[in-house]
């Protein structure tokens, strides 16, 4: 089954939508980060700070007058020439391509890099960056695994305060409470728009192909939040005006891609195989906080509170309460999905160690599921297409 393309020729809404997706696609393919260089030129040499998956306090970077930049790897577009020399055989692909991007100069435009405590690979990558790029500001961001305000919250607030100090020293503005409130408001709007997009997809997935949604959300990894909000709004308007028709496809939730990203062709393959992806965990930073962060009172404390209390159920965070997989079962029901596809990158410890638990929960809830592995540079999709197609057929025939 091919992706439905049934818009009326010459439809101005569709033309706008095509233009928006093409813009996002161009950003996706900008593996040299030229858009960041241009932004810096246009903004009087303002600084840009990269961050690895899965979380970064983008509000703080923005409040420091800097551009937060998601560094999600090279995908299938970057040939690994030097990056392999730094790593052993058995490791996910993301660090290879990130080091490649660093060594080939693509990331020279970044004045700093934030490495969150996603896993041991990204943790160690922070140390590699300190050695390989001594002139780049490197911050390892230890996300608290204790969620009590006066323990983990206090620790995290100190971590974020240090980041504020560091970014000021790096040549940014002081992220004052006033500036931070303004940035929080912008990112609240961003999360609301992304959430709206996800809800539209749940409601009518034929109007929001996942291959488009992916590109639109991913654009937010490179664009200033103000521009990304505008892009999202325009795309949402175009979706609302869409006349696309539903197809007989299975509604599925996709899990496991929260760090190393699937190639765009993998998403297209799943759609072509008959799956409407109605929920996913791509670029989880875009949806990290459930709801708004308060703009009243102490903004830093509000960010910390939001992190402690409203972070997503994510394999990199210790699950203090509840049962593993409950969140996935709930998300599957909320999205009115008929099945779950576990799609994790090879050698991804957080995803693959989590999977037996979440998969058991899904099976216990009698939700059909299937699983496969990918790498960001996977180029052959026939097997996945057959597997996903069979899965979708089984759902539709049941």
């Amino acid at each position, binding site marked *: 089954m091919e992706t439905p393309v049934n818009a009326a020729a010459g439809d101005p809404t569709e033309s706008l939508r095509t233009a928006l997706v093409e813009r996002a696609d161009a950003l996706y393919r900008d593996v040299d980060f030229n858009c960041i260089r241009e932004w810096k030129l246009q903004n009087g040499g303002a600084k840009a700070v990269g961050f690895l998956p899965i979380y970064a306090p983008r509000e703080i970077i923005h409040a420091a007058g800097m551009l937060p930049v998601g560094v999600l790897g090279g995908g299938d577009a970057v040939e690994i020439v030097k990056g392999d*020399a*730094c*790593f*052993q*055989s*058995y*490791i996910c692909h993301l*660090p290879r391509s990130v080091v490649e991007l660093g060594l080939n100069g693509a990331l020279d435009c970044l004045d700093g890099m934030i490495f969150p*405590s996603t*896993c*041991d*690979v990204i*943790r*160690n*990558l*922070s*140390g*590699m960056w*300190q*050695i*390989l790029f001594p002139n780049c500001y490197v*911050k*390892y961001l*230890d996300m*608290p*695994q*204790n969620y*009590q305000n*006066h*323990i*983990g919250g*206090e*620790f995290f607030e*100190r*971590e974020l305060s240090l980041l504020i100090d560091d970014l000021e020293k790096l040549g940014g503005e002081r992220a004052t409470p006033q500036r931070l409130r303004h940035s929080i408001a912008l990112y609240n709007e961003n999360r609301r728009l992304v959430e709206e997009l996800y809800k539209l997809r749940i409601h009518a997935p034929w109007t929001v192909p996942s291959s488009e949604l992916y590109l639109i959300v991913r654009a937010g990894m490179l664009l200033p939040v103000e521009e990304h909000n505008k892009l999202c709004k325009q795309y949402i308007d175009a979706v609302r005006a869409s006349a696309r028709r539903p197809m007989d496809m299975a509604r599925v939730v996709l899990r496991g891609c929260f760090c190393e990203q699937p190639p765009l062709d993998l998403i297209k393959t799943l759609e072509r195989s008959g799956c409407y992806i109605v929920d996913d965990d791509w670029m989880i930073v875009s949806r990290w906080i459930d709801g708004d962060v308060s703009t009243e009172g102490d903004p830093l404390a509000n960010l910390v509170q939001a992190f402690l209390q409203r972070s997503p159920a994510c*394999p*990199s965070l*210790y*699950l*203090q309460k509840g049962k*593993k997989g409950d969140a996935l079962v709930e998300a599957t029901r909320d999205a009115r999905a008929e099945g779950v596809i576990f799609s*994790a990158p*090879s*050698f*991804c*410890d*957080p995803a*693959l*160690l*989590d*999977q*037996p*638990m979440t*998969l*058991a929960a899904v099976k216990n809830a009698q939700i059909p599921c299937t699983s496969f*592995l990918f790498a960001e540079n996977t180029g052959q999709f026939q097997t996945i297409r057959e597997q996903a197609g069979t899965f979708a057929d089984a759902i539709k025939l049941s």
Partner: protein
Amino acid sequence: MTIATPLKDASQERQKAMIAEHFHKLAVAHETGRKAVYTFVPGNLTELLLTFDLLPVLPEINALQSGMRQKSGDYVQKAEKMGHSEDVCAYVKCDIGMLHSGNIGPTGERLPSPDLLLLSYTGCFTFLKWFELLKEEYKAPVAMLHVPYQSEGRITPTMRDYVVKQLKEVIIPALERISGKKYDEEKLRHHLALSAKAEDDLVHVLETAKRRPSPIDAYFGAVYYVGPIFSSFRGTTDAVEYYQLLRAEIDERVARGEGPVTPDGAMGPERYRLVVEGPPNWTSFRELWKMFYLEGAVVVASTYTKVGGVYDDGFRHDPSRPLESLADYCLGCYTNRNLRARSDMLIKYVKDYDADGFLVHSIKSCDSFSAGQLLILNQVEKATGRPGGFFESDLVDPRYFSAANIKNRVESYLQMIEQRRAAGAVR
């Protein structure tokens, strides 16, 4: 090469008896009203568990013992058949496979189910997932201790405060609940003082490798030496006495000018002095060691023997600041240090122990150790001018140990040292 008759040292016999007694206590724990707490080697809080009369169980040690007893392959595959990925840590799969095969420990007795999973999240992300999995398997409570990473190569007051606060408000209350006993800081001080004594003697033993010939192998041999202090015995009089015995034995070897003891007896002449980074392979442990000692290669320092605590930089458990000292211990474990600190440690070892070179053993299972090791290798080579080598296998998954390939690599590496010696680059 002639290999002398193997000898069993008194310290080995003592350690064997200690381990047997401990596993027997575990086997009858629930009958005798004792509680079992599962925890990990890096960042273990053994003194604190002893304070509450709790029995530690270390799944990593059980997994490596399963590897040495050739049982891990079946356990790993059993876990994979249950849905655990081929790509993840073999220790975890070995543990889960063992659990589903009767949970028989290394001495042949059954291990008790945990009364508490003490998740000391130190230097290894997999620990977190491992105990989430065990929580599902055993339906046991978890006490989580988040130990921040030393990303800047130092312990900050914020990190220490965070750990101490968790000890006071999360860990100790959990141990009180499980044991039914109140926290007794004086008792903790007593155990910490015993730890410090044993740590002194361990450091003395490890540092004898600076001599020529080295009286010990500080990797293959030293994994036995660190056994008691890395596992259930730190903070006990048993450990103090074991390390006194071991120290006396090694000092005697020094006095006699002897090299290390191997499984085949005394090693022949010392031809190569090496530093090794990374854990050993356990399924072919002796085969791997033999590749070294038959060539006259002795490991004079290793980082694996620091995963359960780094003591040769002066750290000691300190009874005068009990919780702060436990926090510093956790924060200071080897894999909780950043890559620059790890490189610096290796550089120091190569220089201080006058090594001819260093080898990296990259472990498929262990990103904590392995991610970035080739950059470490590059750094150490640059700083010391000594050649580095690299080989790969796994901890307890025998499918990833290719003996011929590794032997070829080790021999080629030693030949390279020989050639560089001939060229005058290495002594």
